Each structure stands twice: as C-alpha cells, then as structure tokens.
C-alpha cells in the first residue's frame, strides 16, 4: 500500500446517482483511509465517469471538451478501449483494488503532468486473462469430503432430483449457456404460479386441474393439499409441456376437506416444485452477471434444504452478488447456486438487482471469522448428528 498523501485527492463522480456516490464515499472512507474525497467536478483533480449512465457516451465527449487533459477513469459493464493518455478504463463491477490502482496511477499522472508523462510505467488494470476469456478464475476446488459432507444431508438420489448433475458452464459460451435455462411456465411450477395469481386477485381457493393428482390451493390459510405422495407427483413436475392448457377452477366449499391428502404451506410446495423443475437450471432470461438480492432468509426449517443453501443465503443477505460470482466465492458447483436461486425466485425471495449502485463495485471478499476453524467443526458436528438421526 502506498503512503497516503497528506492532502486527499479530490475526486468527482460523473453520471452517477446518489446511491453510487454514497457507495464511493463509503469506499473512500472505509477502505482507502480517506486518501480520496468526493467533490463536485469543478473542484476535482480526477474524475470517474459511468458510461452506463443515460447518455454516457455524450457525457464522456462533453467532459473531454471541458477538460482535455484531466485524468479520467471510465467505468462500464461492457469492455472499452480508453482513447487517450489521460483516460483509464475499469470494467464494472469494479474490484476495489483495481479502482485504487487506477486512482493511484492517475494521481501519479497528476504529479508528472508537468514533467514527462511518457516516463510513467505501463498500467495493468485489466482483469486476469482467465476472466477476460470468460473463464472463471481457477480455484482449488473444495476438499471432496467437504462437498460430500454438505451434500450428504440429502441422499444422492434426492440431490439428483432437486439439483441435477449439470457441470459448471462458461457464461461466455452461448452453447453451454443455452443448456442452463428452463421456462417455469412450461412446468407445473408455472401453473401453480397462475393459480396463485388468480387466488390473490379473487381472494378465493383454487383447484389446479390436470393429468396430475388433485392439487387444491387454500389462499386464506396459505396451504396446499395434494391427494398423492411426492413420488407420484414428481414426474408431473419435471416434464415440460408447453402446449398443456390447465383449467383453474374456484374451489367449492364442500371440496375443501380431502381425506388422506398431504398438506404443505404454499411457499414450501412452490419451492419444491421449482427445485424439481429447475434441477440446477435457471429461469429463462436470468442474467448471470447481474447481482442477485435476497429479500430475506427463507424459512429453512420448513423447506427442502439443498446443499450450500444456507451459505448462499448468508452471502446474499450481506450483499447482492452475481450467480457466477457466488459459485466462485463459495467455491461450489454452479448448479447448487442456480437451484437455490430458482426456488427462492419462485417464492419471490430473490431476484436480479436493478439499481445502478449494485453493479458499480465488485462485492468484497468474504472475510473469515476469527473462529473459522471452530465454527466449521461445530457445523460438521451438527450435520454429523443429523445424518445419524
């Protein structure tokens, strides 16, 4: 780390909303020891310009007209070439260390401005080669026993049913990408969603009729009754049928009690249907690079808990992260993240972030607790006990 200059560098953020500015302010104070301070453009020495802002290209052109030689850091989700000696490009989400490197380079640029700019050393702030090629950074996989330990809470056949067996994909490869999506509307999951929408609209109980065993949705009590065992229901949940017309009927009062039926909470049933349909895939249209927010923790004691679900929830509860980044950070196969997201999205607990601030900075690294080893051993102990019960 370079020695902090006695006077903070005056920075400006152009094309950024209040939330993005606040995020930068917080970053400068918490991670950079107040070596940089955010000010208005007129008083600034170095500017950061978000090309993804409305009219970003024009903002850039106009900025250069106003300040032909002022050091500028361009940021965007799409890779760009910087067009002059005074401009650097950093791709969003911005890793904190790359932003600091870029600011420090521009700071030296400032000092050298009246000397010989050509003497500045070349700057490498591009992502590692593996990332540029769309390959995840190579990480040592988790120890095999750890993976199996977590997964062993579910039997292997259950895990196959809920999470599938898909290998990791390269998000930049369209062929691989096409394999990870499914359309929930073509599954029983989608028909249940329609029934729920109808129940909410009319505040009534609904029968979801089709070739499957009778499914009755009771809106007021948030319950579902199914007149079959799970193994009888599952085949209808895993096979897509885009042509099937499913009649939804308001339920008569007298049909509200079904003897021998299995009862679920609506959320638990919907969650399970989404896992069966997804099998480690994602709802069509999901953007792999967009950070995912978790509205709140799922009520795990009453849901099917897939391997690593608690770790993913804990991570997203701290900060939105993209699906690919989540798998890399936790060093787990992507299918576990995709399965969890599909289920959480089905019950509206998770979704893609839409705010500009959520893609500005790369999520911070996960800090290990000072009791990391102890907590891991306790976790292993609790899970070991579960296997025996």
């Amino acid at each position, binding site marked *: 780390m370079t020695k902090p200059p006695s006077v903070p560098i005056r920075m400006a953020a152009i094309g950024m909303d209040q939330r993005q500015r606040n995020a930068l302010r917080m970053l400068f104070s918490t991670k950079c020891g107040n070596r940089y301070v955010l000010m208005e453009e007129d008083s600034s020495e170095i500017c950061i310009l978000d090309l993804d802002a409305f009219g970003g290209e024009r903002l850039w052109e106009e900025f250069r007209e106003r300040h032909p030689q002022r050091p500028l850091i361009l940021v965007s989700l799409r890779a760009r070439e910087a067009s002059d000696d005074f401009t650097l490009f950093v791709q969003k989400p911005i890793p904190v260390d790359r932003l600091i490197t870029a600011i420090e380079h521009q700071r030296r640029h400032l000092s050298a401005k009246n000397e010989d700019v050509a003497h500045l050393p070349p700057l490498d702030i591009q992502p590692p080669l593996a990332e540029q090629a769309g390959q995840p950074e190579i990480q040592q996989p988790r120890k095999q026993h750890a993976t199996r330990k*977590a997964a062993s809470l579910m039997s292997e056949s259950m895990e196959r049913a809920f999470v599938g067996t898909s290998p990791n994909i390269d998000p930049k490869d369209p062929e691989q990408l096409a394999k990870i999506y499914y359309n929930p509307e073509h599954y029983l999951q989608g028909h249940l969603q329609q029934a729920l929408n109808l129940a909410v609209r009319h505040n009534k109980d609904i029968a979801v009729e089709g070739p499957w065993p009778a499914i009755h949705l009771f809106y007021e009590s948030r319950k579902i009754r199914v007149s079959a065992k799970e193994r009888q229901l599952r085949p209808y949940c895993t096979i897509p049928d885009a042509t099937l017309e499913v009649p939804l009927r308001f339920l008569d009062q007298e049909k509200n009690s079904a003897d021998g039926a299995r009862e679920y909470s609506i959320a638990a049933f919907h969650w399970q249907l989404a896992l069966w349909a997804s099998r480690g895939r994602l709802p069509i249209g999901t953007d792999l690079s967009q950070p995912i927010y978790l509205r709140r923790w799922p009520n*795990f*004691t009453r849901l099917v808990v897939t391997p690593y679900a*608690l770790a993913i929830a804990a991570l997203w509860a701290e900060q939105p992260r993209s699906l690919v980044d989540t798998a890399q950070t936790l060093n787990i196969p992507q299918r576990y993240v995709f399965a969890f997201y599909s289920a959480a999205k089905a019950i509206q607990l998770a979704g893609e972030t839409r705010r500009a601030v959520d893609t500005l900075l790369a999520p911070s690294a*996960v800090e290990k607790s000072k009791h990391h080893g102890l907590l891991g*051993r*306790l*976790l292993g102990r*609790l899970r070991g006990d*579960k296997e025996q019960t």
Partner: protein
Amino acid sequence: MSDYKIIFSGPVGVGKTTAIGAISDVEPVTTDEQATDMARTQKPGTTVAMDYGMIKLGERERIHLYGTPGQERFDFMWEILTQGGIGLILLVSNNRPDPFHDMHFFLDTFKAFIGNSKVVIGVTQMDLADKPRIEDYHLQLEDSGVKIPIFEVDARMKNDVSLLVEALLYSLDPGLEG
C-alpha cells in the same frame, strides 16, 4: 482446552431449555424453580439462573450452550452470560400476547452483543398460534438494515434447532465448509 459460548435467550416459556436439550451432548443443567410472578401463568417452573448444555468437539474443544433466564428481573445475568459468546439464538413464542414486542425487547437488550456477533431468531409454538406469520416478523425488522435469519422452530426437534445454529454459523462466516 478451548471453551466457547452460544447464548439462547427469549421470554419465559418459549422453549430455551428444550432447545438446548435438543442439541446438547450432556443432560442439560436447569435451575427451574416455582415461578412467583407473571411467569407462573406461562409455565409451572421457570429458569431463575440459567440453563446449561454443551457440545463437545473432540477432546479439547467445548461449545457451551447457555440459556438466559426469561424473567426481566434477572436481566443483570444477561450481560454476564454473553461475555465471550460467539452468537445469540433468540427464541420468540408465537403464542405469547405480543411476540413482536418480545422480539424488539430482546434485540434491543442484546444490541451491543449482537453488534459484535450475530443473531438468529426462532419462532416457537406456531402450532398453537399460526399468526403472526414468519414474513410478519421480517417486516418488523425491515428498517433495521440487516437481514436476520428467522425460522419457524419446534424447540423439541433437533433438526429445527440444529438448522437455527447452522444459520448462525453461516451468518458469522458464509465461507464455512461443513
């Protein structure tokens, strides 16, 4: 020998003693006495000092499980019990008159401890009273800026209590390998 603590807290009759018993390796030590005040209406005996259980991790490590007394007149004990604790498990009964007040009261009481560690909330006795729902508890905490795990829990079920503890551990360190 290394010793660490997990604290179980919550009002009278929420199932702290039962929850500790569900995951303890040793027969829980309880200090129940005949209740003398409002606790009497909740259950015949209540914890006046603390509950104690333990999870052994090999020969050299112990996780001590301490249950705080539920009655507010023993609140002088609460701060002492939390010293050196790694996290808080707050149990709230859905069958008490104002479970939201209970939740806010205990979160506020343990604010300093939670600030240095993490908290998870287990809502018990939802079989006796199904409202408020779990999402209502989350709504109560929406403005707090933190997303606390809140699970429906049957304190008698080892699996439920265990999942609550697991959520606490992952909240403390999402990168754990179990």
